[in-house]
């Protein structure tokens, strides 16, 4: 067992960063992620880490500095939320396409407008196609664990892709949780020494980063990104998760399947809301309802085959999205789940629920309403309305 501590989510993130001990952090504050760097900068000031901390003038500069440092050969980490992540947007694509293993802790917060500082997933969903790996953490323990694993996942030679570790703003970032931390030595042994692929600072092997591609090369480089995420990243996420499990006793996979083996009705959900869903599953199960839940951890890459395998035999599935994709039949997670299930013979009916936007609370009673709807969907095979908003005042 590790050392038991009571940490807020942001503290857990900062602690993981301290133990990983990156070479460079360039960051800009934004609620609710600010404390990550406030705590980390205190570590720097106290000499607990020798990280080069670069306080920049904006999140666009933060991620740009991270890209430059990563290309130079440094291990690089940063943190942000919402508008900060949005301001990084163009450079996120560059970090991923340059195949730089940058780690970013994204404390999920709603994208403006209206201005809202509370949890929803619109920020990370807005960057879902930037080519980054996205891991969603249920709680502070997992945020801590995910960051440590993220180093190994992103730096793996078959992956070489930046990783965004998401944790819910305020709900997790500002809640104190009983959790366990590993020793500094264990974390250092797990992440290992970074061996950058082609550091700019290696003058004996000069390289060029960021050159122009014309029509004759761009698509080949993009095909490489698909190969890394499609073919290798899921496997590496699982391998690292198993290795982390051997070290810590907490084993991680691409998702957590909760009481799905013989389930008829299932809910797909990410992050902290999964807690309320699992509570609801337990209550329904004791009433004899065959309910189950899938808490997705790896949203990018999306584990379509694995998801089809565990959800394929259900009768009805509801996907809870903490972000919307206006103008489409449902939320963004819903779209991927439905696609994953499309080819399954006797596939389940799949419906979309949008919930919790702007920090609107989500409690077990809300999850029960979802399962009630699923009962109707399973009985009637009717999926209209395909997308519903949970807990909204008419």
């Amino acid at each position, binding site marked *: 067992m590790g050392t038991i501590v009571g940490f807020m989510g942001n503290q857990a993130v900062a602690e993981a960063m301290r133990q990983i001990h990156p070479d460079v952090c360039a960051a800009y504050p934004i609620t609710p992620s600010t404390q990550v760097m406030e705590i980390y900068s205190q570590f720097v000031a106290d000499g607990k880490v020798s990280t080069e901390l670069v306080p920049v003038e904006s999140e666009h500069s933060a991620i740009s500095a991270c890209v430059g440092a990563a290309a130079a050969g440094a291990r690089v980490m940063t943190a942000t939320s919402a508008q900060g992540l949005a301001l990084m947007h163009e450079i996120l694509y560059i970090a991923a*396409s*340059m*195949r*730089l293993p940058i780690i970013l802790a994204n404390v999920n917060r709603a994208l403006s407008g209206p201005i809202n500082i509370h949890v929803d997933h619109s920020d990370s969903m807005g960057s879902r196609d930037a080519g980054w790996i996205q891991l969603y953490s249920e709680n502070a323990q997992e945020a801590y664990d995910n960051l440590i694993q993220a180093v190994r996942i992103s730096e793996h030679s078959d992956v*070489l892709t930046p990783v965004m570790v998401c944790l819910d703003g305020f709900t997790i970032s500002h809640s104190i949780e009983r959790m366990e931390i590993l020793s500094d030595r264990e974390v250092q042994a797990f992440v290992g020494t970074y061996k950058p*692929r*082609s550091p700019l600072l290696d003058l004996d*092997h*000069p*390289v*060029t*980063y*960021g*050159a122009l*591609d014309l029509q*004759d*090369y761009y698509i*080949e*480089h993009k*095909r*490489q990104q698909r*190969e*890394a995420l499609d073919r290798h990243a899921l496997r590496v996420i699982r391998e690292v998760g198993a290795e982390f499990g051997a070290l810590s006793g907490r084993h991680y996979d691409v998702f957590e399947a909760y009481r799905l083996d013989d389930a008829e009705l299932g809910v797909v959900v990410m992050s902290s809301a999964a807690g309320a869903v699992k509570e609801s599953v337990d209550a329904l199960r004791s009433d004899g309802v065959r309910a189950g839940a899938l808490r997705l951890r790896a949203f990018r890459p999306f584990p379509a085959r694995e998801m089809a395998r565990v959800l394929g035999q259900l009768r009805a599935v509801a996907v809870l999205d903490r972000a919307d994709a206006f103008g489409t039949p449902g939320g963004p997670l819903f779209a991927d789940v439905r696609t994953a299930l499309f080819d399954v013979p006797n596939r389940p009916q799949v419906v979309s629920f949008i919930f919790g936007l702007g920090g609107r609370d989500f409690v077990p009673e809300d999850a029960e309403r979802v399962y009630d709807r699923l009962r109707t969907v399973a009985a009637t095979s009717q999926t209209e309305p395909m997308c519903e908003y949970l807990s909204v005042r008419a």
Partner: protein
Amino acid sequence: MGWDESRKMGWHDLPAGGLIPLAGNAEKYKTGGWRTFRPILDLGRCTDCAICWFYCPDSAIVFRDEEMVGFDLDHCKGCGICAAVCPPKITAISMVEEGEASRQFGDLGVVTLAEKAAA
């Protein structure tokens, strides 16, 4: 890291991420063909102040032994900044339409020298 310039590599062989395992190979990409106007140097007026060298965005001003000898026409894009920044009392550089310059001074080469204006 494999790098085969004899063919267009496919996604299996290309270094990941658009990385080029060389430094400065942009030199091989000859942008001189983009030129519409060519800078012509009057050696008789040039004082080797190197202001044009400082401002040239393509590093296309050629100095040898601290003397201006001409332009790298493989890479000069004819932007005319050199002619614009050459001090008004000197005006050693003039921009000549490329076709005309080619007829007068020859084809693209590494350096072109203007003959001193016939006295």
